[in-house]
């Protein structure tokens, strides 16, 4: 067993007494993220710079402590939930923008910086940082990197990985390596590409070099409503078939529209079965061409009204509706379980029908607001966990949703990650050989298996060369880790 008291003394020596939490309330706060999973933390550290991150890792290594990196804690898959007596290293005190270099189309930032603060800061330069997860007001760039976060505006421009040029990564032994390059090519394997989306299992990101994207000269935002969910979903494929890749293509069903409308008053049509929020951008001339194609696609599927934002104020209002969805659903019930799965775009309509059927079967309320253009669904089950038996039904429904999307040829997660929540489903998506290879990728960074253990891969997945060490360490998941 690691000696937590001794580790605490060392950490306080390196970070100062304010940099370490060890009281029961503090430990409880950092024992969970935004998922339904709860674990337990041994110690919590708040480094203020890269050197202090290194110190945390060296001290953890010296005391044999597991390490769980954590940003803002908005993750939805339990990847930042500590298991056992781990040291949670929180990057929220590292939130500086280190440099902005428009000519090189890059900026260096610290991992704790809020996503939206970066975009806001960049705007005067004529550039933006494209990924915009719904949590962007409070989620950190470091967390976004670790989950390979998406967002509405990732349809045309790609998710986080496409916007990260390089990272400084503190390896489990505390050494910091720059992976990737500021320029267009780097020597060696694309380790940067592995770090992005690694859910804190390969090291701690101490700085991120993000790609800046020019803000397009013109943008048009449309809200389209439909009498049936199927018509709305099929319009998505029709738009793509016409050769249009909008900047964003978001779908909301009636349940979510009604909740949002009471909250945001964006003028969404509450009698429609579903709406599409579509944004196209580019040069003014091209924008007109794209709008014409989208309208034609929508008419093929019996669109009701097409509302076009007349100005930036109206555009922001339409987006407020979309972006406030997860706040608005608190009106439906006190708790919600938000899913994340991807299916081929052409399977959206049937998958949605399947999701409604699952909700009915388990007697649950489900609403849907999601990135339709990517086929990335977010069914949202609202419930009251105080009602006995409800939680069990919610979890059973979750299981059904995973199988439904895999049966449709989809993936386990589009943007939230695997974490603890979905790791035991990994064997449904990959063979044993695949999982062993993935375990080797991870072990190449962390041969001792101390970085965020038990996450992403199921316990059985081992890299041959490193299997013995891992098996000696892991017992069963501690009692009470789940919920």
């Amino acid at each position, binding site marked *: 067993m690691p000696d937590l008291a001794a580790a605490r003394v060392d950490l306080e020596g390196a970070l100062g007494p304010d940099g370490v939490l060890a009281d029961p309330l503090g430990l409880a706060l950092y024992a969970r993220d935004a998922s339904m999973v709860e674990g337990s933390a041994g110690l919590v550290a708040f480094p203020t710079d890269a050197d202090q991150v290194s110190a945390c890792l060296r001290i953890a290594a010296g005391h044999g402590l597991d390490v769980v990196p954590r940003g803002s804690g908005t993750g939805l898959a339990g990847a930042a939930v500590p298991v056992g007596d781990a040291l949670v290293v929180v990057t929220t005190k590292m939130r500086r923008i280190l440099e902005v*270099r428009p000519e*090189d*189309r890059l900026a260096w930032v610290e991992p704790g910086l809020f996503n939206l603060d970066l975009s806001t800061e960049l705007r005067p330069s004529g550039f933006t940082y494209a990924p915009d997860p719904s949590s962007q007001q409070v989620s950190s760039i470091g967390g976004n990197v670790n*989950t390979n976060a998406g967002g509405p505006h990732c349809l045309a421009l*790609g998710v986080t*990985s*496409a916007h990260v040029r390089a990272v400084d990564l503190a390896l489990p032994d505390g050494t910091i*390596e*720059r*992976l990737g*390059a*500021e*320029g*267009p*090519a780097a*020597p*060696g*394997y*694309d*380790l940067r*590409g592995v770090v992005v989306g*690694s859910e804190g299992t390969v090291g701690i990101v101490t700085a991120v070099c993000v790609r800046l994207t020019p803000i397009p000269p013109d943008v048009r935002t449309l809200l389209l409503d439909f009498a049936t969910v199927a018509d709305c979903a099929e319009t998505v494929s029709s738009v793509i078939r016409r*050769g*249009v*890749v909008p900047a964003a293509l978001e779908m909301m069903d009636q349940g979510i529209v009604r909740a949002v409308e009471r909250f945001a008053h964006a003028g969404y049509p509450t009698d429609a079965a579903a709406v599409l929020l579509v944004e196209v951008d*580019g*040069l003014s*001339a*091209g924008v*007109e061409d*794209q709008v014409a194609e989208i309208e034609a696609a929508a008419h093929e599927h019996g669109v009701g009204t097409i509302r076009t934002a007349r100005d930036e104020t109206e555009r922001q209002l339409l987006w407020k509706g979309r972006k406030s969805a997860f706040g608005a659903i608190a009106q439906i019930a006190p708790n919600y379980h938000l899913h994340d799965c*991807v299916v081929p*775009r*052409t399977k959206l309509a049937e998958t949605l029908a399947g999701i409604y059927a699952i909700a009915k079967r388990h007697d649950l309320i489900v609403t849907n607001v999601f990135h339709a253009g*990517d*086929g990335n669904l977010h069914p949202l089950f609202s419930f009251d966990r105080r009602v006995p038996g409800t939680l069990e039904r919610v979890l059973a429904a979750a299981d059904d949703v995973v199988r439904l999307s895999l049966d449709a*040829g*989809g*993936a386990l*997660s*589009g943007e*939230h990650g695997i974490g603890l929540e979905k790791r035991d489903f*990994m064997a449904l*998506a*990959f*063979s044993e*050989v*695949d999982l*062993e*290879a*993935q375990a*080797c*990728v*991870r*072990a*190449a*960074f962390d041969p001792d298996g101390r970085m965020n253990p038990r996450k992403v891969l199921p316990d059985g997945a081992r*890299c*041959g*060369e490193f299997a013995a060490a891992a098996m000696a360490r892991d017992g069963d998941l501690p009692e009470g880790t789940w919920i």
Partner: protein
Amino acid sequence: VDLIHPHSVEAAASALVEASRLGTRVLVVGGRTQMDRGNPTEVDAELWTTLLDRVVRYEPDEMIVVVEAGLRLRDLRATLAEHGQEWPCDAEEDATVGGAIATGADPVRQLRVGLLRDTVLEVEAVTGDGRRTRSGARTVKNVTGYDLHRLVTGSLGTLACIAQVALRVRPLPRAARTLVTRDGGLDLGRRVLETVPLPAAVLAEPDGVTVRLEGWPDEVREQEDALRRVAAADPVDGAFPGRVFPDATTLVEAAVVPSALPALLEERGAFSASIGVGLAWIPVSGPEDLAEVRGRAERLGGIAPVVRGDGGLGDVPVPALGVHLRMKAAFDPAGILAPGRGWIP
């Protein structure tokens, strides 16, 4: 050298099992268009992927195509064009999909179409010891598990043999136009990039700037008008991109940040520099000239591998060497895949 020319992924896997057992060193070969990339390697056998050339699945509405790695770009382009789509890779017609991925051939049009690595959604690869392993998924978005497909992209055949891939494709632009200005130089290139909104590529040479415009017809007209406000320019016929410096025996592909291009190319007589990207193709006259270019690139924080002729990758240290070595050991335990060709010793 011996030849392994498998008809199936299974056969390729068996061959690699055997090669690892016997210690037979193997170079995986696609279309033979980028053989000079990487450091020289000595092998006992070549594994040709060119019989693995099926289009496994293509659903245009999904904008995803699944193909075997030996498919030639010429054939892939023809298949996709029937549905008005393209894979945004600018490699040569004879190149194979797997070869383009293994060499990390980022498109010249990357300002508009992005990077090659972001189009590779799923890879089935055969490890050096013959294990068939898959990562990623056939969806445009996916964060499930570790991205082995990232590692093989640009790995120069040193980690695994790419057997089958799912690629994200895109609509072909409705309009495309290539123009060349009558004056040249990096400064003009930079002014073009600042003035013309969202170009696909701006390639500055000493005596002209080639500008590639792609998009909706009205959009391309608007871009062209913007270009003409900066410089007189004439349209060019033919495919884009053309072969860079076709007569050069030794060609470097330097990579630095865009703001370092002037320092990299100062007093060089011939170059083609991708403005806003930071790639520069530079013909070099011999080992001393190569060393000079390489020295400059490295002082500017970049790299300068040779892509045609002799010279290899250059002597740049890789970061996290231990991670690299463990990765190589895990995927090619017998060390038979293209020994020495990559960046690690």
